[in-house]
């Protein structure tokens, strides 16, 4: 009988897939915040009033 504490291969693969998806999501969010900051700062830098 299999040990219930042992994670099956399918469960491990699924968990790994989920973790990679979460990591990618966070990386995308950080990159987006960075890009938005650059775009908005850039617009202000080019604005002669500042």
């Amino acid at each position, binding site marked *: 009988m299999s040990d219930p504490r042992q994670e099956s291969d399918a469960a491990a693969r699924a968990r790994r897939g989920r973790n*990679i998806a979460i990591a990618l999501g966070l990386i995308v969010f950080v990159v*987006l915040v960075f890009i938005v900051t650059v775009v908005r700062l850039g617009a202000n830098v080019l604005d002669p009033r500042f």
Partner: protein
Amino acid sequence: MAMSPAVTTAQPARWQDFVQLLKPRVMSLVVFTGLTGLVCAGRPVDPILAAVAILCIAVGAGGSAALNMWYDADIDIQMRRTRGRPVPAGRVQGADALALGVVLSLFSVMLMGMALNWLAAGLLAFTILFYAVVYTMWLKRLTAQNIVIGGLAGALPPVIGWAAAAGETPLNAWLLCAIIFMWTPPHFWSLALYTSDDYAKAKVPMMPNVAGAKSTRRQILIYSLLLVPLCVAPAFTGLGGKAYLAVSVLGGAGFLGLAWRLFRSRAGDAPGERKDGLYDVKLEARTARNLFAYSILYLTLLFATLLTEHLAGWAPLTS
């Protein structure tokens, strides 16, 4: 208050299950109408920021869909159309769907505020809360007017898009909202006319179960009569051009024709189920299915024409 049941996962969740929680098809419609609002605003927006605004609208819609699936798991498991969804099917735990919904909603609102403006972010937050709390948790199980009032959540994306581009929401933005709002009852009730047995089983008070098929068909006709003039209106408020006028009038005539045929039919009077588990679309119910399919085409054509006119720089009929 009804709560979603504690669903145990039968098999490990894959990342595709989490994508399904976001209702990608609904998301694509929201993106389309949000983009139309953003373009129709007619203000110069940095393309990167415009893309971020659309992404925020899409992710916000996905977040509210995940919250909906978390809360409605007990209803979804009873209906054939929805029992394959990740939570009722046991592929994703309710708590995980809730966490995903909350995180995506917060991220989308925060990013919209930082990238564009806080009016757009506030409207996005209102839309998410309205769909997840007012519609899903309250109206859906309470009244047959659920999709009428709840339809506001689906109608707001063009206003959010407009606000993101312009920082304001003029009358024309709300006109686009009103079109989708008025379009929702004929669209959903024609679907409900041939799936009402499913809703009855789940004890969801949809109009055909509560007021009967005849009353539903009459209300569909009334909403259609109000909808079509509203769809033509943008041609006279400085929003739509000649192409839009032609599409809205000709398409509207088709819409009214199908609504009239549905009104005269017995659609929804005798819903049936085939032995293979599929819906039996009887000859009479076909009129409901025709209006349901046509309503999607009509709305898509209206917004696609507006989008094309504004992207191509064609002049509106009135200024």
